């Protein structure tokens, strides 16, 4: 009997190893009400598209007479920025650490436009970030295979699994183990970061992944990671890996 069981188990393992396991991942979009889904699908109803318009204007505007606009170096965003948001965070050689899209925009301002960086979550930064992210809408999230990202990504995963705060909860406990369950009246989503920056109905505004991560940390009564900190970017780096292959929905709408 035991030998039969072992043989069946081995066959099952081999079959699983070769067969494509069905993707159990659900975008937050699938957990939303039909009305909120309609708001995201329709560019004329999605309030994030108002911010994208601002981003499009900023892309063309030179920050000063002595500096070029983004378009001055990159040309049309639809071509130059296609795929960028879907691959970030990326490793920056000068800073020697991963950076996310908003940090890349600010580094461009400093290094190539002789301008001061925009403040975190500022309207201008969110506008540019959402405009650039739009150019990757519909593309699969494709994290870069850069070996220098491996160690930071592993640290990000450790953060994802670490219990934090007075409520002593880790991201994994809610979004991996209890996804589909309820917290209060709200459905717990799997927490995929595939729509950022997004218009959150709760914020009545467009905001970044960093803002949302900080909200979650405050939610479990933990000290939120600082905007732009290496740790928050490493967490975002792990989340992009966790979401690899899922379609980027930026700029999404979420409740």
């Amino acid at each position, binding site marked *: 009997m035991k030998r039969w069981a072992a043989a069946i188990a081995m066959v099952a393992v081999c079959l699983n190893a070769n067969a494509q396991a069905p993707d159990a991942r659900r975008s937050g979009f699938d957990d939303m009400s039909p009305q909120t889904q309609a708001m995201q699908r329709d560019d004329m109803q999605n309030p994030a598209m108002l911010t994208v318009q601002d981003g499009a204007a900023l892309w063309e505007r030179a920050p000063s007479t002595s500096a070029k606009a983004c378009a001055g170096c990159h040309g049309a965003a639809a071509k130059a920025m296609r795929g960028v948001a879907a691959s970030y965070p990326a490793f920056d050689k000068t800073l020697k650490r991963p950076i996310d899209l908003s940090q890349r925009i600010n580094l461009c301002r400093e290094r190539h436009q002789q301008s001061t960086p925009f403040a975190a979550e500022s309207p201008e930064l969110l506008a540019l970030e959402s405009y650039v992210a739009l150019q990757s809408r519909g593309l699969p999230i494709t994290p870069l295979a850069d070996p220098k990202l491996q160690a930071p990504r592993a640290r990000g995963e450790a953060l994802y699994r670490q219990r934090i705060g007075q409520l002593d909860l880790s991201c994994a406990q809610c979004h991996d183990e209890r996804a589909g369950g309820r917290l*209060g009246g709200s459905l717990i989503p799997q927490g995929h970061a595939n729509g950022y920056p997004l218009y959150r109905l709760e914020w009545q505004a467009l905001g970044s992944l960093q803002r949302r991560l900080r909200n979650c940390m405050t939610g479990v009564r933990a000290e939120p990671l600082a905007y732009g900190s290496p740790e928050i970017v490493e967490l975002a780096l792990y989340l992009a890996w966790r979401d690899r292959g899922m379609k980027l929905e930026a700029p999404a709408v979420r409740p």
Partner: protein
Amino acid sequence: MQRRELLHLGVAFGTAVVVPAVRATSSEMQDAIRGYANGASVKPGKVKLDVPPLVENGNAVPITVSVDSPMSATEHVTGIAVFNDRNPQRDVVRFTLGPRSGKALVSTRIRLATSQQLVAVARLSDGSYWSHSVDVLVTLAACLE
């Protein structure tokens, strides 16, 4: 003994004060509707207020109001108003329409502070008023900023 009786009285008073407050809010909404109708009677019918029965976030709730009307020069909707009973204020939005509208069909997104009743009232060109009320359940966000 006396103190316990007083405490019981106090509790009874406490409860007695809370219950009428809930009813008073609904009567405030009735007052607002009466004001819009200039005292005319408001009958249920002709109006359809489309709002999801369960709302995942009260900050942006899509609503659609439609009225069965030919929207002709002689027979049309002149106004649509939406009222609530649990927000800080009873009025939500008031529309003015006319024969140029073609149809009496308006949509917008509104804020709902909590689960409550919404009433859409239509004013017709013949001076009559019609309404439709819907109860909406609003879930509040679990993790606040």
